[in-house]
């Protein structure tokens, strides 16, 4: 039964309230007077200038020579003085790996190249002086939007007579752009196109958002009839790509980019695989000619450029999930990329010192302790090995000396900070559960390989593997359930999936490390 129609006159105060509220909202659209407009503009300007002043302290004027006549720019990424620049800025000094860096304090520091990524035009260096140094923070290039304000900091035409970087303002002009390599110019895949003025000397310098966070490394620009002078188009390597290569760069290695070993072609509106090399990652994953490519690692791919961009920004060995359509069915295949062959790759041997310095840094981070001295310490771990079903139910509890022994071998180096010799190597990066990890490997005399994968951002242990030369990652232990053991935050549960589909779980009850002042807490069993 219909109710009587609402009669507004019976609730006059409601209507008046509504009108009042609209009037309050109206000033949103009113024009501002001149002084409040200037205040608004000034406040925004102040915020921007403060952010730029801070990040300017982390920008390096990189020079090949001590006279400071040839060079580009770079940016420090940690307080120890590690920094990023373009590979082409340091390519000429790779024999000595020594160069010079001017900071905004007006002083020139010696600099050493640590790792290089020629395919991505990136290099990692370190200032050879005690810190602490001001350093920049990373933004997220995947969050960038076209038209967003950006600034570039660098040293165009080497005009920074006091090493304070030159700042130029612009916007994101395009995303996921592709620039062909030609002559001296390196290929730039999946790069950020910017309208900030970028000129010779800006190379290697950071491109930042208005909060001063680094979103790309400036490296190339489009030039035309006027010669090598900016005309509003420049390109930077997105920081998200650089992050994937940082573990290998820090390990002092030369990075390789990845390839699927297959090519695609646009047929109508579909992207079809038109060539698949047999022993390539694509071949081994079962990708066939005629398959329609839909996505790479969840990212939709519509054109050959986008395919290039998706793959070329990944390191060799990186895991990829390829979304396909075959005969009307959607499939997902997994594989790891093979190294991409590049002409004129330099010969570059990592130094043991740099590589081991990185291992020590990663392990120290994880152990949560200052690494004053290497060497084993006594570690006493009490644990229980359980055999659990799918739902976590205890199926049987049996001490397995072999499993416990294997697990002890894997975790002891994490706590006792081993002596490093040539059997230890920082391998570079990988991706585990969507996180970038650094991989440390030990090659045992019995030819087994042990690998530890630590989260590059948080330092947490993501996985530990055991294998041999043919199959380096046969067995994987996954740490879970971090708990406090004294002043150490450590996984209390370790899970291994067996080939038969069973779960082996190790619960850590007690953890004692010699030298700690108090006995650690007892953890109740779950």
């Amino acid at each position, binding site marked *: 039964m219909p109710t009587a129609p609402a009669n507004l006159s019976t609730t006059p105060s409601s209507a008046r309230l509504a009108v009042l509220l609209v009037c309050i909202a109206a000033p949103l659209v009113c024009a501002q007077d001149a002084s409040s407009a200037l205040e608004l503009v000034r406040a925004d300007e102040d915020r921007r200038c403060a952010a730029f002043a801070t990040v300017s302290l982390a920008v390096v004027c990189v020079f090949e020579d001590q006279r400071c006549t040839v060079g580009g720019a770079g940016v420090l990424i940690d307080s120890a003085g590690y920094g990023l620049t373009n590979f082409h800025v340091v390519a000429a000094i790779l024999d000595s790996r020594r160069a010079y860096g001017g900071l905004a304090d007006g002083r020139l520091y010696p600099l050493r190249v640590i790792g290089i990524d020629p395919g991505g035009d990136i290099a990692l260096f370190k200032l050879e002086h005690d810190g602490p140094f001001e350093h920049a923070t990373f933004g997220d290039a995947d969050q960038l939007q*076209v038209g967003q304000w950006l600034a570039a900091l660098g040293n165009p035409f080497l005009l920074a007579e006091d090493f304070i970087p030159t700042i130029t303002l612009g*916007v994101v002009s395009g995303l996921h752009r592709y620039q062909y390599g030609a002559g001296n110019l390196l290929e730039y895949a999946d790069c950020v196109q910017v309208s900030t003025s970028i000129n010779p000397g800006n190379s290697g310098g950071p491109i930042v958002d208005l909060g001063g966070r680094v979103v790309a490394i400036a490296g190339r620009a489009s030039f035309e009839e*006027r010669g090598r002078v900016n005309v509003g*188009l420049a390109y930077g390597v997105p920081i998200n790509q650089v992050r994937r290569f940082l573990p290998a760069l820090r390990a002092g290695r030369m990075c390789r980019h990845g390839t699927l070993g297959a090519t695609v072609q646009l047929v109508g509106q579909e992207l079809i695989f038109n060539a698949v090399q047999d022993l390539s990652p694509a071949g081994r994953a079962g990708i066939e000619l005629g398959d329609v490519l839909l996505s790479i690692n969840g990212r939709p791919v519509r054109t050959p450029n986008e395919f290039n961009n998706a793959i070329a920004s990944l390191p060799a060995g990186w895991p990829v999930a390829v979304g396909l359509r075959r005969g009307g069915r959607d499939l997902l295949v997994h594989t790891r990329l093979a190294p991409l062959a590049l002409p004129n790759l330099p010969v570059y041997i990592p130094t043991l010192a740099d590589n081991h310095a990185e291992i020590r840094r990663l392990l120290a981070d994880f152990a949560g302790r200052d690494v004053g001295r290497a060497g084993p310490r006594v570690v006493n771990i009490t644990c229980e090995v359980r055999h659990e079903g799918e739902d976590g139910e205890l199926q049987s509890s049996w001490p397995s000396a072999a499993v416990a022994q294997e697990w002890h071998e894997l975790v002891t180096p994490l706590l006792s900070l081993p002596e490093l010799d040539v059997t230890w190597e920082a391998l570079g990066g990988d991706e585990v559960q969507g996180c970038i990890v650094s991989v440390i490997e030990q090659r045992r005399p019995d030819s087994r390989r042990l690998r530890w994968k630590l989260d590059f951002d948080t330092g947490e242990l993501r996985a530990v593997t055991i294998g041999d030369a043919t199959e380096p990652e046969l067995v994987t232990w996954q740490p879970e359930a971090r708990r406090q053991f004294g002043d150490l935050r450590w996984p209390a549960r370790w899970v291994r999936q067996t080939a038969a589909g069973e779960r082996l779980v190790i619960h850590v009850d007690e953890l004692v490390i010699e030298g700690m002042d108090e006995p650690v807490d007892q953890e109740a069993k779950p």
Partner: protein
Amino acid sequence: MKPGAGLLALLLAGLLPGPSAGAQTPATDNPFAAAIDRAGQRVVKLHGAAFGREPGYGSGVLISADGRIVTTLSAMLAGRTLRAVLPDGRVLPAELLMEDEQRHLALLKVAADGLPFFEFDSSAHLTPGDWVISAANPFKVADGPEPVSINVGTFSARAHLAAVHRAQDFPYDGPVLLVDMVVSTPGSAGGALVDADGRLVGLVGRAVTGRRTGTWINHALPVEQVAQFVHGEPYRSAGGDEDATATNRLTALGIRLLDLGGRLRPAYIERVRPASPADIAGLRANDLVVAMNGAAVSSCEDFRRTLRLAAEPDRVTLVIKRGDEMTVVNLPMETSP
């Protein structure tokens, strides 16, 4: 429910942070998103045959839902391989419908419908310092469905174009919008210039060199000129019955120039009519006019052209050289009968 409860709910909701608060990038760092989105859907990439030094690619703007496109004149429009790439990536053959040599514009057509397009608004509201955004495909960076390149700058000034294109005088000498970002790049011509609200204010112009500055001129053709072109109105140069205007004004001022023809004749005054405005202001025979209304006058033709273009026909300021002295003379001018 009491009305007071509604008010309370409103106030509480208003105090809560908005949906995008807490995001990494404050909205003020990306103020052009809506305008860029609009422009991107209405700009096409053009491809054709390269001729000599002209690249075989460019940009164009959609001006009707059924696929009419305006772009700048270029050699590739005459070729059979001319095609337009729509924002969604579709590649369609393009047909040349109309050309305008003076304005250097062309109208194309592709077979499509339901396309987003630009209305012809106006550029009159632009004042110096207003944000302007260009959407075009310089260096053909964008391929297929990839978005065109965006540049942001400010509106610099309105001016009349005086330019050359590869050593030849550029035919358009009318009003242009000067902008302070570089749009004189290969492939940008024909792209859209929009304001901060995404309204079309101009079409990015051909890459030409200005005669006054000797530099590449970053400019756009005002949307009013584009509209006139599309509606079939021919461009009338600032000329017209120019000589008659100049002659009338000279007569009104009472000046006769010593003009024996030829472009390089300096603007000497041959005779001043008694009791004319020139006589009253003190001009005499054999005075050499070197500047008028702030513009240098180096020849009789300069004098006549500047006089014809004078914006204030009721006042003329001359700088004259008499012997070794320089003097400034202001002339009121009777309005022509």
